């Protein structure tokens, strides 16, 4: 099976080859955009992301085997252009959570867990909206798109150390007042799963 890098090289000569790249990554990019901008805006943003990627395919760094960070980096910039839409979306998330209507993948336990989660999301949404654009990109590439910090660095064209610094700042900003201990818990969790040791 071709790597993303090989597909992008092929698309230099045979643009239609780009379809395979779309098929590989559209689901993840669409989900990232939908969860940032809402379903209504996601479709156009998805098209725009891949069209920019196609036009910029000559600038893809072939040292990267996967194009996913690159595509999500473009998607983040596309989302950033729709600032008002994103702000509306986070308000809608907050409102839905306040009504207990938030949708999750089922990873939260029943009853008490759902109520806790709803409360947490209701509190989180405005804080996410209030982050600086770079911080928000970093957080959402990490939490929504599942990129590792080194991939986020690729996506945003920054150093991995900067990503770690931003994540640390973001934790402070998202944490409820007086929750110093919970911040330590998150850091500890990442150290436990090895990502921090491997990539820091």
């Amino acid at each position: 099976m071709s790597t993303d890098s090989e597909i992008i090289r092929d698309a230099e000569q045979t643009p239609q080859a780009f379809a395979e790249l779309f098929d590989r990554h559209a689901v993840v990019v669409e989900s990232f955009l939908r969860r940032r901008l809402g379903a209504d805006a996601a479709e156009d943003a998805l098209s725009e992301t891949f069209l920019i990627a196609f036009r910029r395919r000559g600038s893809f760094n072939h040292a990267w085997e996967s194009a996913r960070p690159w595509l999500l980096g473009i998607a983040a910039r596309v989302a950033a252009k729709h600032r008002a839409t994103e702000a509306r979306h986070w308000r809608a998330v907050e409102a839905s959570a306040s009504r207990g209507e938030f949708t999750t993948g089922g990873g939260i336990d029943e009853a008490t867990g759902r109520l806790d989660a709803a409360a947490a999301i209701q509190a989180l949404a405005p804080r996410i909206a209030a982050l600086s654009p770079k911080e928000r990109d970093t957080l959402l590439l990490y939490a929504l798109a599942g990129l590792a910090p080194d991939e986020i660095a690729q996506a945003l064209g920054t150093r991995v150390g900067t990503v770690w610094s931003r994540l640390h700042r973001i934790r402070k900003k998202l944490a409820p007042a007086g929750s110093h201990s919970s911040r330590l818990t998150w850091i500890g969790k990442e150290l436990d799963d090895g990502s921090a040791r491997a990539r820091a």
Partner: protein
Amino acid sequence: MDQLEHVREIESAPDAAATARIARARGRVMSEVSTSARRRHRMRWVWGGTATVGGLSAAAIAATVILAGAVAPVVTQPASAAAAEVVSEAAEMVVTGTDPSLQPGEYLRVRETYELVALWDADAGDGTDPIAGFNMASLLTAEGAVLQRGVRDLYVPAERSGDWVQDDRGVNDVVQVWGDPRTADAFAGLVAAAPARDADPDGLTVLPGGAYQRTPQETPSPGSTAAAPQSAEEFYDLFRPFYDVMPRDPQQLLDWYRDHLQTSSDDWYVFQAIGRLLGTDLMPADLRAASLRVLGLLGNVDVAGTNGTVTTLAMTTQFTEETEFGDQLVSELDIDTSTGRIVGIREGYPHRSTSLMPAGVPWASWSIEVSIVDSAPMP
């Protein structure tokens, strides 16, 4: 559960409508990709009037790309004396000056009305994607064909450093459908799936000073070996940055065009490109006159007919191999000899198969009208 995990949970449930959204976006992207494929071979906007037709025009124009890339034309004959005389007279008219004179606040409106054939392959893709059906069709496999007509306007202000406006809002009409009766429905499906490719309600584009707004560059990563982004502006009148240095001697100018259009042997491309350049009256008059004389230097160009002040020049390109479009491409330019302007461009394949559509239908055609108007639509 920590805060970051809560963020991960936000709207993480599968969305049943996502598949349809992705499919529509895919259609739009691949339609544009196909158009870009055509642009790569043909310079940017040589067929600029078709840009809004997206995949349809790509399907139509792909034919010539195949011909140009795969087959070398046979040895050419010089242009006929009659053709050389027509372009010489037209050049004289340009030099003596018949350009419209604009008052402050007025605009030059360049209206292109184009007709294009789009082939439809019922089996393309998995048979359910209307855009794939139009983008992937070939003359040999197509079950149907649609002749569509569209209009596109360009408004050039009296002061050319002002805002130019490109109006792509016109609706593409279906002029004729051939072949499988399902073709009409498929075309309607295409328009519904990608309306922005047909009639774009937001299709008013401002070009400051005639320059396209560049898409913001992606920031290269540290250490990236990526090619440096292009820094030059890109203008509607593509060769504007070169006007001062383009030769006025016709033979030298022909060499210049061959070089800058990246075509050493496909003079049919030079022929059509000059048609496009002269259709808009945007080049300096002496350069337009020289460009007209270049047409008289190209091989296999002859006078195909005269209608009032309009004379049609035809350039026949014979290919050494038979393709699905036959072995011949005929490019035509209508020259208004009273003004020296190009008012029509056509491209046809007289030896193509007629099993799907009758002979004589041009594969693509443009008619160009230039007029002075008091205002331009603004976004």
